[in-house]
């Protein structure tokens, strides 16, 4: 390793950033030209072109390819119709994966949002609020790989007789119990893995919801209080409705993150002991077992699971447009 290694990289970075600035300037100039002629479509085109181009190449094309592949066999050679889908909903292992995924996408967004909201309410206006928030947000900055290492020191099991290096088992021992091989205990191990994701996502929920809470007009809260509403009534009837859209953003974001979850399962159980989920098994099938068709099918199921959220989002948008009109 020498200085030129650093220069190479930073040189590339500099060139890249300058080139990007040039592209932005060019786009801006184009947009300006189009605007002068007052042509909305042309302006929109310029504004959207880079993003849409990137998305077409990097996401739309792969998505279409995946859908096509899901109707083909393991080597993507022969058309097999719905065989892979039949496999996904009849094979006991695949069913287990679907059930697990269903648990994840219900429990994790619910728990993360709820805990985030409770915590945000609890620390709102409290001395040291920033510190409280930073402590809980801390896990957000940690990679999944890092998180798995961290939680290894919590769930590790070292045999009934041995010295425990996992915190959870040590606590059990201190309380007089005998240690448990947590990650092998199906179905509870699923919950333990979810705890890791909740641990990461609550910080995000707290920060967003706490910001939203500060925006709730105090007059409304006061008015409710003077009318004799109890704190829980105020919470449910005033606070929650006022920050509804923030709650939805949090829930949707966590939902999608949960659906795509791969790393935690990969690093902690590899999907063994009944802990496999869609996104992880998809990678297993596609890249390790060379079952490309099945892998693609699981990916399509992932898309399908998001459809309800998309529909909800569309209706939400329609409604808001009606309101603004």
């Amino acid at each position, binding site marked *: 390793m020498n200085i030129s290694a650093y220069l190479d990289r930073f040189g590339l970075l500099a060139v890249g950033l300058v080139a990007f600035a040039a592209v932005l300037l060019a786009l801006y100039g184009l947009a300006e030209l189009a605007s002068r002629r007052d042509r909305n479509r042309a302006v929109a085109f310029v504004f959207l072109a880079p993003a849409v181009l990137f998305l077409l190449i990097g996401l739309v094309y792969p998505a279409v390819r995946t859908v096509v592949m899901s109707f083909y066999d393991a080597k993507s050679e022969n058309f097999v119709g719905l065989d892979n889908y039949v496999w996904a909903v009849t094979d006991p292992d695949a069913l287990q994966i679907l059930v697990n995924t269903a648990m994840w996408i219900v429990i994790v967004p619910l728990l993360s949002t709820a805990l985030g909201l409770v915590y945000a309410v609890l620390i709102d206006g409290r001395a040291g609020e920033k510190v409280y928030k930073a402590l809980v947000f801390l896990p*957000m900055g940690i990679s999944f790989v890092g998180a798995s290492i*961290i939680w290894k020191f919590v769930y590790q099991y070292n045999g009934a007789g041995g010295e425990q290096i996992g915190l959870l088992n040590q606590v059990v021992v201190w309380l007089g119990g005998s240690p448990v091989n947590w990650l092998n205990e199906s179905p509870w191990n699923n919950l333990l893995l979810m705890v890791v994701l909740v641990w990461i996502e609550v910080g995000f929920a707290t920060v967003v919801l706490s910001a939203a809470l500060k925006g709730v007009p105090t007059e409304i809260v006061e008015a409710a209080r003077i009318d004799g509403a109890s704190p829980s009534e105020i919470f449910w009837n005033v606070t929650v409705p006022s920050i509804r859209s923030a709650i939805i953003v949090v829930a949707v974001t966590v939902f999608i993150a949960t659906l795509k979850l791969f790393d935690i399962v990969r690093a902690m159980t590899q999907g063994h002991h009944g802990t496999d989920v869609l996104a992880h098994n998809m990678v297993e099938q596609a890249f390790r077992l060379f079952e490309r068709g099945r892998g*693609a099918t699981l990916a399509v199921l992932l898309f399908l699971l998001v459809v309800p959220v998309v529909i909800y989002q569309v209706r939400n948008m329609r409604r808001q447009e009606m309101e603004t009109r």
Partner: protein
Amino acid sequence: MSTRTADQAARIGETRGERLRRVLSSRAASVVAIVIAALWTIPTLGLFVSSLRPDEDIRTTGWWNFFADPGSVSLYNYNYVLYSDSQGGGLIINLINTVVITIPGVVVPVAFAAMAAYALSWIKFRGRNLLYVGIFALQVVPLQMALIPLLSIFSSGLHIGGMTIIPAWDLEGVNTLIQVWIAHSIFGLPLAIFLLHNFMRELPGDVMEAARIDGASHSQIFRKVVLPLVTPAIASIAIFQFLWVWNDFLVGRTFAPGEATRPLTAVLGDMAGTWGFGWTRLPAAAFIAIVVPLVVFLLLQRYFVRGLLAGSVKG
């Protein structure tokens, strides 16, 4: 502070019993808040303490034993992972790779997303909502399924029939990092557009209208009116994207293969050696990887909060 005035307002006219209940519940609230904060911090604390212990201790006893014998601090693992010439060490170059990957990996998608979000929220054209919903839905395309097609476009180009739409890139060495920038930009766009669109839509329409009447073009409104208003939102999305790019390893290792261009996180998992025997190095390495995003977040927290505040208040 608004909450404080609310508190004072509530105090007027409350009975003794009500006051007692309020103080009690405030105590309980404190306890619950402290418990949550502690639970959330302990695992990371464990990692930090572990990273300072000698290998043998990490292997055989729990990290909490450290407090019984704080003299056993060892910086050996930090030293090893940062500076060793062997494959499991020398993270410095990987740290630099991560920095070089991260900066464009944040700037590019956020800039493009801001433009796209503006068009989607304030320029009227047919199919706008459909396009927005489509982009929203793209969030769920699993990254892993996009790796192969994108990689093959980079390495052999894109051809339809006999026509070459995109030629092969043939990048080598450090230059393969460009592919990582592009890949990160692509994968970051849907979420960034979704969040920014949420913020921009909430901007007051009359301000835009006024600017239009004054004869401002879309590009001028975007630059002079919208961008300043959504700066906090952009900052918070940039922080998101930063965390994601910094912590990613799959994209980095796929699009810039070779030891020389690996980001920090890609090395993390492999540090333990062929048979996973060196896992005691992982705490130190993981902590190095964590420090930077944490510092960045703590420094920029203010912007983060302000940005989110701007977007998500209105019901």
